[in-house]
């Protein structure tokens, strides 16, 4: 609860906070942390600092939301072929070639 209260106070400073308050990072530094944050590779302290920035910066909040959406959409669009059961037909020649190659290999 204490931590949430602290974040609320920090949030009330708006973006100016990143220049005047301790443990604040710039958007560029935030960018450097981003992939490690998503991979779960930040220490507890780094994660706290990262989320503190997120609290005060509308641009980085929007950016991160859109970035995460891209990751989600890529995965789903990339695998949609299988979900649609619309896999392209396998040419018979191909199957025969595989089976012939297998026989030859034996």
């Amino acid at each position, binding site marked *: 609860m204490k931590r949430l209260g602290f974040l609320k106070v920090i949030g009330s400073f708006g973006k100016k906070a990143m220049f005047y308050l301790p443990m604040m990072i710039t958007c560029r530094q935030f960018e450097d942390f981003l992939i*490690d944050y998503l*991979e779960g590779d930040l220490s507890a302290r780094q994660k706290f600092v990262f989320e503190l920035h997120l609290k005060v910066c509308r641009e980085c909040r929007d950016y991160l939301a859109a970035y995460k959406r891209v990751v989600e959409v*890529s995965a789903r669009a990339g695998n949609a072929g299988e979900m649609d059961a619309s896999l*392209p037909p*396998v*040419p018979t020649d191909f199957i025969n070639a595989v*089976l012939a190659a297998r026989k030859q290999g034996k």
Partner: protein
Amino acid sequence: MFVRQHSPWMLSVARRILRDNAAAEDSVQEAFLSAFTNIDKFEGRSALKTWLHRIVVNKCLMALRASKRKSEEQLDELMPQFDSNNCRIEDPWPQLLSADKICEQKQLRAVVLENIDRLPEKFRIILQLRDIEEFSTAEVAKELGLSQANVKVRLHRGRSALKKMLEPVLRGHLS
């Protein structure tokens, strides 16, 4: 039959990675031969499909390495922008479409895939393996012979560029 049962999805994976039908068929054929040869090494600890998936991805990566690499394009203009105070320059997002909204439309899914294809090869292949084939960062690093730090840098650049390219889709301008 084994080949008939597994060919469709294996070809689908190979086509996604190689973007070339003939090369995909060659890689799947090699994957089957490798599977037949090594079936005694299949220990049953993973599902057969997982094992075959790994083999076909390996074969595709070998084909990619052997093929002429595309030249690396300049991604800088698609990277995040910052002002002189190192503050991010990002237009407000009054609307960010949900993944459901985007993926339920075939046309938008096609736009997403086309844009992934437009990424330079060294970024596209990492995004493909990590975000679509669901390999871990460590697995991608091992498969490509890169450090994990390098994989993360390339993955981040690829995703950042893709985010910029897909902004019209994400903002609902194409719906």
